[in-house]
Protein backbone atom coordinates (compact mmCIF):
# COMPACT_ATOMS: atom_id res chain seq x y z
CA UNK A 1 0.00 0.00 0.00
CA UNK A 2 1.45 3.35 -1.14
CA UNK A 3 0.01 6.77 -0.36
CA UNK A 4 -0.25 8.99 -3.50
CA UNK A 5 1.67 12.27 -3.43
CA UNK A 6 0.39 14.98 -5.78
CA UNK A 7 2.41 17.94 -7.02
CA UNK A 8 0.77 21.37 -7.35
CA UNK A 9 3.16 24.17 -8.40
CA UNK A 10 5.76 24.33 -5.61
CA UNK A 11 3.71 22.23 -3.25
CA UNK A 12 3.09 18.59 -2.59
CA UNK A 13 -0.40 17.52 -1.53
CA UNK A 14 -1.21 14.31 0.29
CA UNK A 15 -4.61 13.13 1.41
CA UNK A 16 -4.39 10.06 3.60
CA UNK A 17 -7.48 7.99 2.82
CA UNK A 18 -6.49 4.59 4.13
CA UNK A 19 -6.19 3.00 7.53
CA UNK A 20 -2.52 3.60 8.34
CA UNK A 21 -0.52 0.56 9.30
CA UNK A 22 3.08 0.92 10.45
CA UNK A 23 4.65 -0.20 7.19
CA UNK A 24 2.55 2.16 5.07
CA UNK A 25 3.45 5.05 7.39
CA UNK A 26 7.19 4.36 7.18
CA UNK A 27 6.98 3.92 3.41
CA UNK A 28 5.14 7.24 3.14
CA UNK A 29 7.84 8.99 5.17
CA UNK A 30 10.49 7.79 2.73
CA UNK A 31 8.38 8.50 -0.38
CA UNK A 32 7.62 12.05 0.74
CA UNK A 33 11.26 12.94 1.43
CA UNK A 34 12.29 11.56 -1.95
CA UNK A 35 9.53 13.54 -3.68
CA UNK A 36 10.58 16.75 -1.91
CA UNK A 37 14.09 16.16 -3.13
CA UNK A 38 13.02 15.29 -6.68
CA UNK A 39 10.45 18.08 -7.18
CA UNK A 40 12.22 20.76 -5.08
CA UNK A 41 8.89 21.44 -3.39
CA UNK A 42 8.93 24.21 -0.78
CA UNK A 43 5.69 23.32 0.96
CA UNK A 44 3.73 20.17 1.83
CA UNK A 45 0.16 19.71 3.04
CA UNK A 46 -0.78 16.38 4.60
CA UNK A 47 -4.55 16.15 4.93
CA UNK A 48 -5.82 13.83 7.66
CA UNK A 49 -9.58 14.41 7.28
CA UNK A 50 -10.28 10.73 6.61
CA UNK A 51 -7.99 9.40 9.32
CA UNK A 52 -9.98 7.99 12.24
CA UNK A 53 -7.15 6.82 14.46
CA UNK A 54 -3.72 8.25 15.19
CA UNK A 55 -1.86 6.22 17.80
CA UNK A 56 1.52 7.01 19.33
CA UNK A 57 3.45 5.31 16.55
CA UNK A 58 1.68 7.11 13.70
CA UNK A 59 1.98 10.37 15.64
CA UNK A 60 5.73 9.82 15.91
CA UNK A 61 6.05 9.08 12.20
CA UNK A 62 4.06 12.23 11.31
CA UNK A 63 6.02 14.39 13.76
CA UNK A 64 9.29 13.00 12.40
CA UNK A 65 8.33 13.62 8.78
CA UNK A 66 7.66 17.28 9.63
CA UNK A 67 11.13 17.62 11.22
CA UNK A 68 12.82 15.73 8.40
CA UNK A 69 11.17 17.86 5.71
CA UNK A 70 12.11 20.93 7.70
CA UNK A 71 15.73 19.84 7.62
CA UNK A 72 15.51 19.57 3.85
CA UNK A 73 13.98 23.04 3.58
CA UNK A 74 10.31 22.22 3.00
CA UNK A 75 7.50 23.34 5.31
CA UNK A 76 4.85 20.77 6.21
CA UNK A 77 1.34 21.57 7.46
CA UNK A 78 -1.01 18.88 8.81
CA UNK A 79 -4.67 19.58 8.10
CA UNK A 80 -8.11 18.22 8.89
CA UNK A 81 -7.39 16.43 12.17
CA UNK A 82 -10.80 15.16 13.37
CA UNK A 83 -12.19 16.24 16.78
CA UNK A 84 -12.11 12.65 18.09
CA UNK A 85 -8.52 12.24 16.94
CA UNK A 86 -7.44 15.52 18.58
CA UNK A 87 -9.06 14.53 21.89
CA UNK A 88 -7.54 11.06 21.80
CA UNK A 89 -4.05 12.36 21.02
CA UNK A 90 -4.04 14.82 23.93
CA UNK A 91 -5.40 12.21 26.35
CA UNK A 92 -2.74 9.83 25.11
CA UNK A 93 -0.22 12.52 26.11
CA UNK A 94 0.85 13.47 22.60
CA UNK A 95 0.84 17.22 22.03
CA UNK A 96 2.73 17.58 18.72
CA UNK A 97 3.68 21.10 19.74
CA UNK A 98 6.15 21.80 16.96
CA UNK A 99 3.88 20.62 14.20
CA UNK A 100 2.14 23.30 12.08
CA UNK A 101 -1.56 22.52 11.60
CA UNK A 102 -4.62 24.05 9.93
CA UNK A 103 -8.33 23.30 9.91
CA UNK A 104 -8.58 22.11 6.33
CA UNK A 105 -6.70 21.91 3.05
CA UNK A 106 -7.65 25.48 2.07
CA UNK A 107 -6.41 26.93 5.38
CA UNK A 108 -3.31 24.77 5.09
CA UNK A 109 -2.42 26.26 1.72
CA UNK A 110 -3.00 29.79 3.07
CA UNK A 111 -0.70 29.00 5.98
CA UNK A 112 2.01 27.76 3.63
CA UNK A 113 1.72 30.91 1.49
CA UNK A 114 2.13 33.05 4.59
CA UNK A 115 5.02 31.10 6.08
CA UNK A 116 6.90 30.89 2.83
CA UNK A 117 6.14 34.53 1.98
CA UNK A 118 4.97 33.72 -1.51
Amino acid at each position, binding site marked *: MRIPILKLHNYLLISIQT*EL*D*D*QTAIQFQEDLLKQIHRTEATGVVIDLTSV*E*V*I*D*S*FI*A*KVLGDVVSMSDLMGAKVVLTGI*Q*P*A*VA*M*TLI*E*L*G*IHMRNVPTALDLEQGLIKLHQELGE
Partner: protein
Amino acid sequence: MNSQSCVSIQKEWDIVAARQMGREIAKQLGFGTVDQARITTAISELARNIYLYAGEGQICFEIVETLEQKGMTIVATDSGPGIEDLSLVMQDGYTTSGGLGAGLPGVRRLMDDFDMESEVGHGTRIVTTKWVR
Protein backbone atom coordinates in the same frame (compact mmCIF):
# COMPACT_ATOMS: atom_id res chain seq x y z
CA MET B 1 -24.30 -11.63 28.98
CA ASN B 2 -20.74 -12.37 28.00
CA SER B 3 -19.33 -12.84 24.53
CA GLN B 4 -15.72 -12.89 23.49
CA SER B 5 -13.75 -12.53 20.29
CA CYS B 6 -9.98 -12.57 19.88
CA VAL B 7 -7.29 -11.53 17.44
CA SER B 8 -3.90 -13.14 17.63
CA ILE B 9 -1.01 -10.70 17.26
CA GLN B 10 1.95 -12.10 15.36
CA LYS B 11 2.69 -9.68 12.59
CA GLU B 12 2.42 -5.94 12.16
CA TRP B 13 -0.79 -6.12 10.14
CA ASP B 14 -2.52 -7.88 13.06
CA ILE B 15 -2.40 -4.53 14.90
CA VAL B 16 -4.69 -3.09 12.22
CA ALA B 17 -6.90 -6.21 12.30
CA ALA B 18 -7.28 -5.92 16.09
CA ARG B 19 -8.28 -2.27 16.01
CA GLN B 20 -10.72 -2.78 13.14
CA MET B 21 -12.46 -5.59 15.00
CA GLY B 22 -12.45 -3.53 18.20
CA ARG B 23 -13.90 -0.47 16.50
CA GLU B 24 -16.69 -2.58 14.98
CA ILE B 25 -17.62 -4.01 18.40
CA ALA B 26 -17.48 -0.55 20.00
CA LYS B 27 -19.75 0.83 17.28
CA GLN B 28 -22.28 -1.98 17.76
CA LEU B 29 -22.25 -1.43 21.50
CA GLY B 30 -23.35 2.15 20.99
CA PHE B 31 -20.18 4.06 21.85
CA GLY B 32 -19.99 7.57 20.36
CA THR B 33 -17.36 8.62 17.81
CA VAL B 34 -14.93 9.98 20.40
CA ASP B 35 -15.12 6.87 22.58
CA GLN B 36 -14.71 4.71 19.48
CA ALA B 37 -11.50 6.61 18.71
CA ARG B 38 -10.33 6.21 22.34
CA ILE B 39 -10.99 2.47 22.33
CA THR B 40 -9.44 1.93 18.90
CA THR B 41 -6.34 3.88 19.89
CA ALA B 42 -6.02 1.94 23.15
CA ILE B 43 -6.22 -1.34 21.21
CA SER B 44 -3.56 -0.10 18.82
CA GLU B 45 -1.18 0.75 21.69
CA LEU B 46 -1.75 -2.60 23.45
CA ALA B 47 -1.38 -4.62 20.22
CA ARG B 48 1.78 -2.76 19.30
CA ASN B 49 3.28 -3.40 22.73
CA ILE B 50 2.66 -7.14 22.24
CA TYR B 51 4.20 -7.09 18.77
CA LEU B 52 7.16 -4.95 19.83
CA TYR B 53 8.10 -6.44 23.18
CA ALA B 54 6.69 -9.98 23.29
CA GLY B 55 6.67 -10.88 19.59
CA GLU B 56 3.28 -12.52 19.83
CA GLY B 57 0.19 -12.61 21.95
CA GLN B 58 -3.52 -12.07 21.88
CA ILE B 59 -6.05 -9.26 22.08
CA CYS B 60 -9.53 -10.30 23.20
CA PHE B 61 -12.72 -8.27 23.42
CA GLU B 62 -15.50 -8.94 25.86
CA ILE B 63 -18.86 -7.29 26.14
CA VAL B 64 -19.67 -6.79 29.79
CA GLU B 65 -23.13 -6.00 31.02
CA THR B 66 -24.24 -5.30 34.54
CA LEU B 67 -27.65 -4.16 35.70
CA GLU B 68 -26.60 -0.52 35.57
CA GLN B 69 -24.16 -0.36 32.69
CA LYS B 70 -22.73 -1.85 29.55
CA GLY B 71 -19.11 -1.82 28.52
CA MET B 72 -16.30 -3.25 26.51
CA THR B 73 -13.29 -4.98 27.99
CA ILE B 74 -10.01 -5.40 26.16
CA VAL B 75 -7.75 -8.19 27.39
CA ALA B 76 -4.17 -8.14 26.10
CA THR B 77 -2.10 -11.21 26.91
CA ASP B 78 1.38 -12.31 25.95
CA SER B 79 4.01 -14.79 27.08
CA GLY B 80 6.83 -12.33 26.52
CA PRO B 81 9.65 -11.21 28.83
CA GLY B 82 7.29 -9.51 31.28
CA ILE B 83 7.73 -6.11 32.88
CA GLU B 84 10.13 -5.75 35.78
CA ASP B 85 9.06 -2.38 37.10
CA LEU B 86 5.35 -1.74 36.56
CA SER B 87 5.47 1.80 37.92
CA LEU B 88 8.23 2.71 35.47
CA VAL B 89 6.22 1.70 32.38
CA MET B 90 3.27 3.72 33.66
CA GLN B 91 5.38 6.90 33.57
CA ASP B 92 4.74 9.25 30.67
CA GLY B 93 7.66 9.33 28.28
CA TYR B 94 9.33 6.12 29.45
CA THR B 95 10.33 3.96 26.49
CA THR B 96 12.90 1.30 25.63
CA SER B 97 12.05 1.23 21.94
CA GLY B 98 12.59 4.80 20.79
CA GLY B 99 8.84 5.47 20.74
CA LEU B 100 7.06 8.36 22.40
CA GLY B 101 6.54 6.44 25.67
CA ALA B 102 2.86 7.33 25.60
CA GLY B 103 1.49 3.80 25.31
CA LEU B 104 0.45 2.39 28.68
CA PRO B 105 -0.14 5.59 30.67
CA GLY B 106 -2.06 6.82 27.62
CA VAL B 107 -4.22 3.69 27.51
CA ARG B 108 -5.06 4.15 31.20
CA ARG B 109 -6.27 7.71 30.49
CA LEU B 110 -8.26 6.71 27.40
CA MET B 111 -10.09 3.86 29.15
CA ASP B 112 -12.10 3.78 32.42
CA ASP B 113 -10.74 0.73 34.28
CA PHE B 114 -7.18 -0.47 33.94
CA ASP B 115 -5.46 -3.46 35.46
CA MET B 116 -2.05 -4.93 34.71
CA GLU B 117 -0.22 -7.97 35.94
CA SER B 118 3.16 -9.13 34.79
CA GLU B 119 5.65 -11.78 35.74
CA VAL B 120 9.24 -11.51 34.55
CA GLY B 121 9.99 -14.37 32.17
CA HIS B 122 6.36 -15.41 31.92
CA GLY B 123 4.40 -12.61 30.32
CA THR B 124 2.00 -9.76 30.80
CA ARG B 125 -1.77 -9.47 31.01
CA ILE B 126 -3.60 -6.16 30.77
CA VAL B 127 -7.34 -5.88 31.31
CA THR B 128 -8.99 -2.56 30.57
CA THR B 129 -12.64 -1.53 30.25
CA LYS B 130 -14.60 1.37 28.80
CA TRP B 131 -18.21 1.92 29.87
CA VAL B 132 -20.91 3.23 27.58
CA ARG B 133 -22.07 6.62 28.82
